[in-house]
Structure formats: structure tokens, C-alpha cells
């Protein structure tokens, strides 16, 4: 075993042991169920940081902790097994969603996390935990069933507070050092939050027989945190309020003190759950919105630059014509006509950029319509390649064809656009090495692969490149509007197909397009 893995497992084990002990401190029932079970969230985050291989840490941490807590061996074993599965199963399932981003910076990822790492994990954890007591300690089934919801919410809260907190605080790069004024704002925010927490959870005198209404104040702070500081702010406030709420309830003061302990805990859990889901969703939306705004700003800058390039050449050519027209003679007419030809090419490039921009809005509003006809793929690929002759010559990439005869029922113009975009990308990033274009039929689909041996795409960027305005490379080094692959992806999706990329940084990229043949005869068979 290598050293890194050893320390990762050790960290998971120690964390699990300590957090299990902490969890039992809050526990009030004989089952050991606690209003919040922080170890779940901790293990979730560790899986995302280190991968599934750190699972032995759960066993090494939880099993001895349970034995020390006087649990029978079988109960400890079953609970430990449950603890491994409640993270491993949702973790493996969520990986199947290509669009899940573990930094939870968009609402979609946050909800995926909630459904899998929150709800599903808690169902698994609570079921394993409660049933172990019922099966091995002779607890009556009615009592076990009654304990299930509390266990479930405890696991859910652990995942949604500690898990989300660790992921958003440590799963991203550290924020830049704040400026003076930002620091003052932050300090003000922290002081107000702590001051209000003290009033809400400890000090307020009983006015109408309950403290619950005072809890509404927490939401103003939570919204402030989510809007100003995103997921990090929201998760920190949730943790702060939850800690105070639990502490006060344990001291038997504050809003959650009713006659009955289990009612107290239920309201406490309800409060924490509402708080963390509200804050987490809001923060995810705020971050998503900020990201969209900044990528839109980038897009405007890039679009302006891209549109300016053909305009520059065009304007220059017109200025040359204007300047030299008076002294133009027959010997020069040939080169002037060449100049006009170049100008026309510039205009074409310009209008195709404008067309791209329109395609984006068409795709966005679902107005991409296809004009299908029989298309011979091999002919189409050769036609497209012919259009890129000058780019091919410039890139010094050799093109290798490996084409099987394929005919499909597709939109010819759109398919040209798809192939053209992929070839242009391969030429742009292919660093002069051979590019292989191949096609084959498998089942009722055509597969088109365009493979270069260029700079490649890092794993992290492989999802991103298909989104709008996203580029995996620095603006300083590669021109391009960042729409090519987005449009390609949309056009392929409109055909009912898919595109994926296989790549390693520095070792080239292969874009694989799968298009259903959609031949009208074939459709009748089904």
C-alpha cells in the first residue's frame, strides 16, 4: 500500500471514530440515533476527495467506536457494513451523471447530491442501523420502526451540513485574499450572525409560550450568507446555527424545549433540515447565476474579438483597394481579383460566425429543425475536408481516412457543420500530427470518430467543453468563440445521437459521434 493511501485511510478512520463519538454525545435514545450524524457527511466528502478506495477507513473507525460504545459485535458489524454501503452505493450511482460537479457550484449538482448522497444514503444508513437493533438485540419491531425517521433525518442532516460544508470549503481552490473593505464586511457579517444566534437560541424570554417564531430571524442571515458568500457562506451559517441549536437544546434552553424530548428533537431536525436545504439551494442558484454572468461577459469579449478578426482583414483589403484603385493597371488586376476573393472569404467567415450565434439561440429555444434526406457519409466527409484544404495545409496535419460505406437519413447541411466543427478543432489543436477520421456502422447507428494526437483535454474539462461559451484552453493562446462543440452537441442531439470525448492531457483527443441511421424503412420495423 502506498503512503498516500495509508494516510487517507487513517484520516477517514480517525475522523469516523471522533465524529461517531461526537454523534453519540447528542444522542438521546437508547438506539444511539442522534439528531445529526456528522460522520456520514465526512465520509461522503472523503470519497469525493480520495475516491472509493478509502473505504477501509470507515471500518477501522466505526467498528471499534461501536464496540467501545457497548454495541454487540453483530450490531457493530451490520452498522459498519451499512456505513460503507450508504456512501459507496450513492457515490457510484452519482458518478454516472456526467454533469455532476462535486464542488456543488450549480443547482443541478446540488440536487443530485441531495437525492443520492442525502436521501438515498440516509435510507440505506437508517435501514441497516435500525434493523440491526431489531434483529440482534430483541428490540420490538414497533420501536424499531418508530426510530427509523429520526435515524434517517440524522444521516440526511449529517450529509447535507458536514458533507456539503467540506465539499464546498475544501473541494475548490481557496478564494483570493479579500480586500480591506471586503474583510470589514465579512467581520461585520460574522459578528451580527453570532450576536443574533445568541439571542435566538439562548437569551430570548418566553413571550407566548414558545420561542419558535424567533427562528424566522435566522433566515435573513442565511439569505445574506448565500447571496454574498455562496455555498461557503451558506454552509458555514447552517453549521453555526445548527451547532447553537443543538447545544441550547442539550442545555434544555432555547426554542426547542417542549415537554417531550422526542418532540424537541423532531422540531430541531426540522429546523436544521429546512435551514440547510434552503441555504444550499439558494447558494447553488446564486453561484450558478454568477458563473453564467461571468461566462456571458467572457463570451461578449471573445465574440467581439472573433468577429473583429474577419472584419480586420476585410477592412484592410477594402482600404488597399481604395488606396490603390487610381494607380491600378492591367498587370495588377490579377492580384486585385485575388484580393477580392479573399474579401469574399472573409465575409463568409463573418456570416458563419453570425450563423453560429443564431444557432445558439435556436438551440436554446428548441427551434433547431432538421431537413432530412439520404446522406452518403463518405462523400459528405470528403466534401467537408475539401473545404478545409487551406487549414489542413497550414496545420501540417496529415489526414488518414478509414471510412466504411454508410448512408443515413440526416440533415446534410447540419451534418456538414458537425463534421466541419470537429475537423476544425482537430486541426486547431492537433499540433501537426496525423488526424484519423473513421466511420462504421454498429446496429442501427453510425459511429464517426475524429481522432487527433494534439494537446488533449484534461478529464475535468471533458464535460465542460460541450457547454456554451466554455473553452478548455486559455484565451491568450487559442482563438475561437467557444461555441463550436456546444453547437455540434446540440445538432447531434437534434438527430437523436450522442457525442463523447476520449482524451488524456497531451496525448490527443478522440471525438466519437453516434448517430442513429434513422432510415425510414428501419423505422417501420419497430
Amino acid at each position: 500500500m502506498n503512503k498516500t493511501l495509508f494516510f487517507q485511510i487513517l484520516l477517514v478512520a480517525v475522523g469516523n471514530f471522533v465524529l461517531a463519538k461526537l454523534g453519540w454525545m447528542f444522542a438521546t435514545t437508547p438506539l444511539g440515533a442522534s439528531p445529526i450524524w456528522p460522520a456520514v457527511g465526512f465520509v461522503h466528502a472523503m470519497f469525493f476527495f480520495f475516491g472509493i478506495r478509502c473505504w477501509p477507513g470507515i471500518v477501522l473507525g466505526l467498528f471499534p467506536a461501536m464496540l467501545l460504545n457497548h454495541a454487540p459485535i453483530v450490531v457493530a458489524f451490520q452498522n459498519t457494513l451499512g456505513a460503507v454501503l450508504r456512501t459507496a452505493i450513492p457515490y457510484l450511482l452519482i458518478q454516472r451523471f456526467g454533469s455532476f460537479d462535486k464542488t456543488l457550484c450549480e443547482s443541478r449538482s446540488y440536487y443530485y447530491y441531495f437525492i443520492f448522497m442525502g436521501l438515498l444514503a440516509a435510507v440505506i444508513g437508517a435501514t441497516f442501523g435500525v434493523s440491526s437493533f431489531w434483529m440482534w438485540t430483541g428490540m420490538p419491531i414497533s420501536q424499531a420502526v418508530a426510530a427509523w425517521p429520526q435515524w434517517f433525518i440524522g444521516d440526511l442532516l449529517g450529509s447535507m451540513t458536514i458533507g456539503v460544508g467540506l465539499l464546498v470549503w475544501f473541494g475548490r481552490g481557496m478564494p483570493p485574499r479579500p480586500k480591506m473593505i471586503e474583510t470589514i464586511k465579512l467581520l461585520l457579517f460574522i459578528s451580527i450572525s453570532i450576536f443574533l444566534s445568541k439571542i435566538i437560541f439562548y437569551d430570548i424570554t418566553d413571550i407566548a409560550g414558545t420561542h419558535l417564531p424567533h427562528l424566522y430571524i435566522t433566515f435573513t442571515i442565511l439569505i445574506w450568507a448565500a447571496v454574498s458568500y455562496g455555498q461557503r457562506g451558506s454552509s458555514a451559517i447552517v453549521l453555526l446555527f445548527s451547532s447553537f441549536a443543538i447545544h441550547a437544546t442539550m442545555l434544555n434552553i432555547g426554542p426547542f424545549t417542549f415537554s417531550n424530548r422526542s418532540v424537541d428533537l423532531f422540531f430541531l431536525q426540522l429546523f436544521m433540515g429546512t435551514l440547510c436545504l434552503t441555504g444550499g439551494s439558494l447558494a447553488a442558484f446564486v453561484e450558478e447565476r454568477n458563473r453564467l454572468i461571468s461566462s456571458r461577459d467572457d463570451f461578449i469579449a471573445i465574440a467581439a474579438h472573433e468577429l473583429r478578426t474577419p472584419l480586420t482583414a476585410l477592412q484592410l483589403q477594402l482600404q488597399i483597394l481604395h488606396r490603390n484603385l487610381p494607380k491600378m493597371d492591367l498587370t495588377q488586376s490579377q492580384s486585385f481579383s485575388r484580393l477580392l476573393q479573399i474579401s469574399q472569404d472573409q465575409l463568409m467567415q463573418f456570416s458563419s460566425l453570425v450563423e453560429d450565434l443564431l444557432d445558439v439561440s435556436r438551440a436554446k429555444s428548441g427551434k433547431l429543425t432538421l431537413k432530412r434526406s439520404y446522406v452518403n457519409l463518405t462523400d459528405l466527409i470528403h466534401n467537408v475536408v475539401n473545404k478545409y484544404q487551406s487549414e489542413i495545409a497550414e496545420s501540417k496535419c496529415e489526414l488518414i481516412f478509414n471510412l466504411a460505406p454508410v448512408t443515413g437519413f440526416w440533415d446534410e447541411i447540419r451534418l456538414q457543420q458537425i463534421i466541419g466543427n470537429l475537423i476544425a478543432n482537430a486541426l486547431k489543436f492537433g499540433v501537426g500530427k496525423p488526424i484519423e477520421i473513421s466511420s462504421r456502422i454498429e446496429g442501427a447507428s453510425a459511429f464517426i470518430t475524429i481522432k487527433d494526437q494534439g494537446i488533449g483535454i484534461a478529464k475535468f474539462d471533458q464535460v465542460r467543453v460541450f457547454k456554451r461559451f466554455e473553452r478548455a484552453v486559455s484565451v491568450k493562446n487559442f482563438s475561437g468563440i467557444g461555441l463550436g462543440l456546444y453547437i455540434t452537441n446540440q445538432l447531434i442531439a437534434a438527430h437523436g445521437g450522442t457525442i463523447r470525448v476520449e482524451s488524456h492531457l497531451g496525448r490527443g483527443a478522440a471525438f466519437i459521434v453516434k448517430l442513429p441511421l434513422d432510415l425510414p424503412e428501419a423505422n417501420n420495423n419497430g
Partner: protein
Amino acid sequence: MGNSDEALKKGNILVVEDDQSIRNTLKYILELEGFSVVLAENGKVGLEKLSKMTHPCLILLDLMMPVMNGWEFANNLKKNQVLLQIPIALVTAFDGDIGPLKNIPIIKKPIDLDLLLKMVNKYCVPNLPSPDHE
């Protein structure tokens, strides 16, 4: 072409620009004005061409380019006492902060032809009295 090396020294321009059409158009107009033009599609090729050619009277340099961008190209020139002497003019659409290159004269894209020729004539002397192609 029948120019002596002496003449080339005065009217030799290196254009480093990644967009093919802008590059070719610049070559076209500069040749029309009587200069010799060497083209490079990025900074790396620019450095290679520089090592093989008579030192130009001016380098027209784009900033945003693949493989080696304008900033990196200029940085490489600074390391060489001789190349350091060659005047550079930036020809760019880049709108942001150009950082360490801010003391270099700049021609904004879209290019104003008069401004470009004024800049070129400041550093270079045409070596062909009249345009003569092919």
C-alpha cells in the same frame, strides 16, 4: 528576386499573426509598398524564422496566438542582446491589460491602413521602387 542583402536589411518585415487572411493581406499590402515580408503563424515559428533570416527592420506582432503567444515571443526576444534591438509593433484586437508589453507601439485591429504604413515607414525603407509580383 534580385535584391542585394544590403537592400533587404532596410525593408524586411516579419509578420507574426495567427489568422491566415490577416497575415496574407498584410503581406500583400506591404509587398505592394515595396517591402519584403516574412510570415509566421505563431511566436514559435516567428523565432525559428528570425534565426534564419536577415534581421528585419520591424516585427508586426499579434498577441493572441496558439503554441506561443505574443507575450511569450517578446519575452524570448528580450533574452537575446541582438534580437532585443529589433523594433516591434503590436497588431492586436486584445482589449485587456497587455501588461509588460505596454511600452510597445500598438496598432489596434481593425487596422487603419494609413496608421500601419506610417508605422512601417518610420522604421523601414522600401527596397523596391515599384511593386512587382510573381
